[in-house]
């Protein structure tokens, strides 16, 4: 492997391209086309960004539950809610089948932003937390399901049925960091505000701004802080068996003692090390938190133990030679720092 063309370099190039395309792409696909392309993109690309090329599925899903569920219950016509939701999920699934959870690791603008912030933190010599303790990870994991169930479906549904005021119709968008990020990236600060019109809007806008600040700062130290609780990750997890792209593992007894794959994983998926270790055939290990970034495959030292497959054909496999070159490149890359911060007591 050339040190210049590792999978990570290719992935970051794709992420950069997709970031530019999704945030500014209206000039490519046409100003009005973003309203038409899908409105069901499996990544956080915000419709509030007036230059974007396509936008994420979470906006229509919230709107459909907010505006249609109450009407469907009133009229007894379930199709009023089912048809739009199934259309959005169907379109989502169609796009999702192509890349599976790689939409998170290769396409999502917010995911890319967090990776860039993490590089900035490393270059500034800030404290690194490469892995969280297992107990902390276990506490964080259910949050994404609460975000999906509560903010994308639950609260909009309760609003539609009249249990909550209108402000709670699209609560996830109100707090989504990508809404503020992508609009700021187009030079507009319109989405960075505190809304004083009602207590609910005020609470949601404060929460959104605070969360965005929290994500910026935490991404400097911890890998992918928001991805761990993102409802899109949970929505992907529901459909993950439908995608053509897969991560598979054919583990050996050496895996029990190694764990480099789990160390490399930015989402702290320890099951990469512990599952499918004594098996004679490759098994799927695209777990709920996986973003198909491929770092585990890059840092696996054993031949073909981990593989990225597309339509069950290996497209990238673990190999000792690649591992050595990748590890050397990573060490060199991490050695380059712009500022050397003094180590804190916590670390020492």
């Amino acid at each position, binding site marked *: 492997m050339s040190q210049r063309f590792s999978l990570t370099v290719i992935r970051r190039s794709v992420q950069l391209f997709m970031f530019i395309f999704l945030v500014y792409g209206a000039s490519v696909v*046409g*100003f*009005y*086309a*973003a*309203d*038409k392309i899908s409105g069901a993109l499996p990544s956080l690309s915000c*419709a*509030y960004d*007036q230059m974007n090329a396509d*936008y994420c599925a979470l906006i229509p899903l919230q709107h459909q539950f907010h*505006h249609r569920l109450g009407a469907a219950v009133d009229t007894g016509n379930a199709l009023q809610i089912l048809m739009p939701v199934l259309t959005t999920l169907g379109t989502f699934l169609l796009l999702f089948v192509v890349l599976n959870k790689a939409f998170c690791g290769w396409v999502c603008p917010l995911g890319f932003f967090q990776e860039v912030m993490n590089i900035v933190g490393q270059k500034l010599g*800030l*404290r*690194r*937390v*490469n*892995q*969280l*303790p*297992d107990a*902390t990870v276990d506490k964080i994991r259910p949050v994404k399901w609460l975000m999906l169930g509560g903010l994308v479906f639950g609260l909009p549904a309760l609003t539609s049925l009249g249990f909550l005021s209108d402000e709670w119709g699209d609560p996830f968008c109100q707090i989504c960091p990508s809404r*503020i990020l992508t609009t700021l990236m187009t030079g507009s*600060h*319109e989405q*960075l*505000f*505190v*809304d*004083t*019109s*009602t207590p609910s*809007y005020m609470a949601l*806008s*404060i929460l959104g*701004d*605070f*969360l*965005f*600040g*929290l*994500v*910026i*700062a*935490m991404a*400097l*130290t*911890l890998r992918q802080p928001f991805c761990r609780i993102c409802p899109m990750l949970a929505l992907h997890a529901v459909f993950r068996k439908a995608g053509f792209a897969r991560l598979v593992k054919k583990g050996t007894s050496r895996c029990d*003692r190694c*764990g*480099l794959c*789990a*160390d490399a994983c930015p989402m702290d998926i*320890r099951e990469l*090390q512990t599952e499918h270790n004594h098996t004679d055939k490759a098994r799927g290990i695209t777990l709920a938190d996986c973003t198909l970034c491929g770092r585990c495959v890059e840092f696996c030292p054993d031949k073909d133990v981990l593989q990225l497959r597309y339509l069950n054909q290996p497209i990238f496999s673990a190999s000792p030679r690649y591992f050595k070159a990748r590890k050397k490149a990573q060490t060199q890359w991490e050695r380059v720092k712009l500022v050397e911060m003094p180590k*804190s007591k*916590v*670390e020492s």
Partner: protein
Amino acid sequence: MKYTALIPLVLCAPLAQADWYWAPYTETASHHGHGRGAKQFVLHNATTEQQPDVALIHSDLVRETLRLDGNRLKLRPTGKNNYHLLLATAKGQRYEYAAARYLYFNGRPVDTSPTDLLAAPQASLVLIPDPLPREHWKYESQKSYRYRATFNGAPLANQPVLATTTFGSTEILHTDAFGVLEVHIPDDFPEVVPAKRATPPGELKLFISLERGGVDYQFSLSSRYHASAKHWKSASAGALVLGLGMFAGFVVNRRLPSHDRRRSKVK
């Protein structure tokens, strides 16, 4: 707008002859149920002698001829998604008048884009929004919007355009060398209720007229506009909260429990 002082000038100008325009007839709510339900409009200042031809150009470019009831018109939903164009035209030997208004309907998706609708033949003299508002965007006070003025398809440079609102703001603007007009919508609501959709919208009317070869061309474009969200949204407070979030993030970073899986295994 710095309009009030210009009103006497406007009244004397030939622009003041341009006076057809579409306006909503009744507004029970500013929200319009997200584009569902009937919409009613009045063609102001049209006379029966001029016999306006009225058409609704659908989002898929199907042209539906409509008949005015007096000066009023009731539009049923077309079942098609996206922008439609309500157009009234009248053409005589010495005049050509047109009034346009873009309306959004919800319905099934169509294969055509608003770009195609904007390019649809309307009249010789036209003023076209550049662009029309998209998802999560609407005309708002305290913001600027662009339009393109064309005559027989060619950009109309340095052409005066009269901009007025229902709340009395008036200004004469000019297109630039490329026929582009920039309109800054004034914050002229007599009373703003500081909440989303709580203030009834105003109407922005743009009038353009031109005389060529003894023919008087007039065109108007009307649209609603809403009170600026700046009345209840504070960007500086937002920046402050973001800063607090970052500060909290740095505090959390220092306390974040770190874990080394490989080292703990060795132990």
